[in-house]
């Protein structure tokens, strides 16, 4: 099905199942421990071997020699596969850093060997016996120091402009020019990267933890130099990804190579420190924002420049993305620059671009509002735009940022905010409120699905879509149920298997809208097949409801269409240019109340509210869960999360969950989420858009603005830890 004209009325609009508060259909499996995750696959008739990875001890250089003799002789060891022994491997399309093979070391904890043994403990012990001589080279690890060497990236749109920024900024009544920094961040999802690989002749099956089945399948085949058709990927349950499982990772490559060598299925999980230094991370940024405004609050000039770093061949963090679209202003420019760094690979983490971009932009907006003497909510509303400000012929498909801000302000009690920073005190707490807009683009990718109706009336959906904790199983079941007029419990959903039609996968908050649109397309086809089978005329206005198909006075049980054989159809949604003719984005507003301990500078969140305008909400329960999780991640980004770079040794030092501090329950006392009742017919037949990343974008800035409101201290370097506050807090002695 090609989607190239705005959606009109369709069965999803009935809202009998889609949009309803339906608990996760996979919830009981997860809460009872019966959902099988990658490392847990266990066939009692299979003797699994266990692989343990050896990581590079240096950040840059070459492997001189590797001595694996002691490891090979250690108890239980079956095989040792080394990077220099295996030689160069081809790199997958989506990988920047090579995952394995050859002697070049590009970053700390790069995989250089996998030791395979009868037990996990034997493999781990033997891995420690691998001796490596390195020829170490000097690397570049400090973004601030490398900033001046940054270049214009070759891909994407590194520069954008409209009007004449320089002239307009020069003559603006109010001029603002500030810089901000965001640190490297880790996805820090609960389930580590893990794979089991099993060869059957030339056929390879990998049980893994992947957000994008087809990308992994393709890149694993490329890396191993085998035919993609020979690779079977299984990833039905995923314990979080946040972007760290978008692209093929070393565990799958190592498991495949180890299993070939050991001639047995091999399990490989990456140890927790490897999450930080072996895989990917959100790159640090340095951002400069300039805003010129009239005294009445209208922005006349806005510029956003961002610098980040990555390994050679990598890409920038596009932190300026939202600034091209979020606020009006006739004269504008953005620029993205990229330095070469020898740290581990920087890549997508939840809301790449907007998440760190909004961390900076939304503090800047707060600062300018204060300079203008305007309420920050009103300042944002004054500068709302219903068209792409770089191309005013191009409207937003649907945009209600103003509604989000106004609703949020009213519900949060924004009018009670102290107008003068640092003046509200409750016991030892300085209390303040902060606001930020939320913004994240809506992306559309083609997505396929197969649906089957059997004689029992059960509808089975098969797609290689993944559920990374987001609720894919449930919203896909709701979509099929709505389309075919059956209750959710008559729908079976199978995901995460490369034998199923290729879907959008999970990432960039595109998975919910796109994968359900693909299921919609397949269900439209199934409805046609059912109608034909049951002898309805193609001109009939058919209804699918309560397990029956009807037209006029005739009603037939749906299952009857499959009474002799199951009906199976497959289709996929493909998107035309509606995302070119219209700007598709999601909007929201974050409100946060913080307390800052007047003595110690500890910031604690008191309450949070997010208002989201993101098209049709397919399931308010799972959507809310996405948003509160994102808000929590935003608090981490605001207050504690930072991968600390050792600028001498070139690695992320705090590489475990004790030292990389994500929020714990005690940090998140109260969250509220409001969804505006809206649909976006430009986005897909589902009229839905992304929600999972919107919930993150702007949160950290709202916290930062709240801290300013509480203390009068403006911190522009994340995370906002107490050491950045205490020297400016009031005397306490």
């Amino acid at each position, binding site marked *: 099905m090609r989607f190239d004209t705005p959606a009109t009325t369709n069965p999803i609009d009935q809202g009998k199942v889609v949009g309803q508060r339906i608990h996760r259909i996979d919830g009981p499996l997860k809460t009872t421990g019966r959902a099988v995750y990658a490392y847990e696959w266990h066939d009692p008739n299979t003797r699994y071997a266990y692989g343990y990875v050896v990581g590079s001890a240096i950040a840059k250089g070459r492997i001189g020699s590797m001595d694996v003799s002691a490891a090979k002789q250690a108890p239980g060891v079956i095989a040792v596969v080394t990077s220099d022994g295996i030689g160069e491997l081809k790199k997958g399309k989506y990988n920047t850093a090579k995952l394995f093979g050859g002697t070049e070391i590009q970053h700390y904890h790069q995989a250089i060997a996998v030791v395979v043994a009868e037990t996990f403990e034997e493999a781990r012990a033997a891995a420690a016996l691998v001796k490596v001589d390195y020829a170490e080279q000097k690397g570049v690890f400090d973004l601030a120091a490398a900033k001046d060497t940054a270049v214009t990236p070759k891909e994407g749109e590194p520069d954008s402009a409209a009007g004449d920024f320089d002239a307009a900024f020069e003559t603006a009544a109010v001029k603002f020019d500030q810089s901000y920094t965001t640190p490297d961040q880790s996805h820090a999802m609960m389930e580590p990267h893990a794979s089991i690989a099993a060869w059957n002749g030339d056929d390879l099956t990998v049980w893994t933890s992947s957000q994008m089945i087809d990308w992994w399948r393709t890149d694993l085949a490329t890396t191993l130099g085998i035919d993609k058709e020979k690779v079977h990927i299984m990833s039905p349950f995923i314990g979080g990804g946040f972007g760290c499982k978008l692209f093929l990772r070393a565990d799958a490559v190592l498991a495949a190579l180890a299993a070939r060598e050991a001639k047995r299925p091999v399990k490989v999980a990456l140890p927790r420190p490897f999450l930080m230094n072996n895989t990917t991370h959100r790159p640090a940024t340095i951002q400069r924002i300039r805003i010129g405004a009239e005294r009445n609050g209208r922005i006349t000039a806005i510029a956003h420049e961002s610098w980040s770093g990555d390994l050679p061949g990598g890409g920038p963090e596009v932190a300026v993305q939202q600034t091209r679209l979020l606020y009006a202003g006739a004269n504008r420019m953005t620029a993205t620059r990229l330095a070469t760094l020898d740290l581990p690979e920087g890549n997508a983490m939840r809301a790449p671009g907007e998440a760190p971009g909004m961390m900076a932009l939304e503090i800047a907006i707060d600062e300018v509002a204060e300079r203008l003497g305007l309420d920050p909510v009103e300042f944002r509303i004054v500068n709302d735009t219903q068209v792409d400000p770089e191309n005013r012929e191009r409207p937003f498909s649907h945009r209600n940022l103003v509604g989000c801000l106004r609703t949020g302000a009213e519900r949060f009690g924004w009018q009670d905010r102290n107008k003068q920073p640092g003046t509200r005190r409750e016991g030892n707490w300085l209390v303040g409120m902060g606001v930020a807009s939320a913004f994240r683009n809506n992306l559309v990718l083609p997505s396929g699905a197969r649906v089957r109706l059997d004689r029992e009336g059960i509808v089975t959906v098969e797609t290689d879509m993944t559920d990374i904790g987001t609720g894919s199983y449930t919203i896909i079941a709701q979509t099929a149920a709505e389309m075919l007029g059956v209750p959710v419990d008559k729908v079976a959903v199978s995901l995460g298997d490369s034998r199923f039609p290729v879907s959008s996968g999970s990432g960039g908050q595109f998975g919910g809208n796109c994968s359900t649109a693909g299921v919609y397309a397949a269900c439209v086809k199934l409805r046609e097949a059912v109608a034909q089978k049951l002898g309805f005329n193609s001109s009939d206005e058919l209804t699918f409801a309560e397990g029956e198909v009807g037209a006029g006075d005739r009603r037939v049980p749906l299952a009857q269409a499959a009474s002799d054989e199951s009906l199976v159809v497959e289709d996929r949604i493909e998107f035309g240019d509606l995302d070119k003719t219209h700007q598709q984005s999601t909007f929201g507003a974050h409100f946060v109340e913080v307390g800052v301990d007047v003595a110690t500078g500890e910031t604690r969140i008191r309450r949070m509210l997010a208002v989201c305008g993101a098209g049709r909400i397919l399931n308010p329960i799972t959507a809310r869960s996405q948003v509160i999780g994102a808000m929590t991640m935003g608090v981490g980004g605001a207050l504690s999360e930072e991968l600390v770079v050792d600028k001498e040794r070139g690695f992320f030092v705090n590489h475990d969950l004790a030292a990389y501090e994500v929020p714990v329950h005690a940090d998140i006392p109260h969250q509220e989420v409001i969804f505006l009742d809206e649909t976006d017919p430009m986005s897909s037949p589902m009229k839905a858009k992304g929600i999972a990343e919107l919930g993150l974008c702007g949160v950290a800035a709202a916290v930062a603005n709240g801290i300013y409101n509480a203390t009068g201290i403006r911190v522009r370097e994340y995370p906002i830890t107490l050491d950045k506050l*205490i*020297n400016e807090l009031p005397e306490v002695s």
Partner: protein
Amino acid sequence: MRAFSYERASTIEAAAKAAAGTDGAKFIAGGTNLLDLMKLEVETPTHLIDVNRLGLDRIEPAPEGGLRVGALVRNTDLAADERIRRDYAVLARALLAGASGQLRNRATTAGNLLQRTRCPYFYDTNQPCNKRQPGSGCAALGGFSRQLAVVGVSDACIASHPSDMAVAMRALDAVVETVRPDGTTRSIPIADLHRLPGDTPHVEHVLERGELITAVVLPKPVGGKHIYRKVRDRASYAFALVSIAAVVLPNGTGRVAVGGVAPKPWRDEAAERELPNGAKAVTAKLLANARPTEQNAFKVALVERALSAVLAEARG
């Protein structure tokens, strides 16, 4: 983790003797720190002596009027004990500020005292660390040191002691009771248990080979207001940037031990005498010899400010 042999000791004397007689032997109690370190091969004992069944899990009145806390009393049980909560509240509060419920259920009194630093370089066997590998250097000095010690440090090591419990015990003048392999016992004031790093940061305490902690004795209750203030980046499950264990008497005198700033719980009786003169005066003396790095210099100001808040709370 390297392979190791294991035995379960049935008597205190046998445990001490076995530990003294076996190269590379270590006691294991809760194992909440030791096992993590063994998995990383930071610790590589060849033999583990399980002391969990030695019956050292009781809290009893001490003859001199205090309490004798068995070495194997779990942190959860110690924090929940009515006598601890009533008479040594600073200790109960310190315990509850530490780790997580699951870890406290497992962690023991003696193990908590002997837990090792959380310096990230100590944990990463690819990096130099004089504590882990004497003579290899200290990566933390010029590296990531925000969490580490500012006082009592040396050019060889700036690791901080991570315990909350020990800080409160230091304020309470607890005494550590041990048994040596020859069967003799001794009492070590907690102030003397941990050593400063000097040029031997791998030697962290004064216990002899095979010497087993059997109990921690809390002297008679001293009354006063008991406050434990732990300052950290997140609200739970984080090591202290700075912590203050304070017992403040109605006349404004009292005791103060500080955590998160030194290789051991940091207390200075001369500094303490300044308590009636306020936090600034106490901190000036307590941290007079501080040698912070650029990254952890904030701890000096933080101690003063946190102590100031504690004293204000004590005045109530």
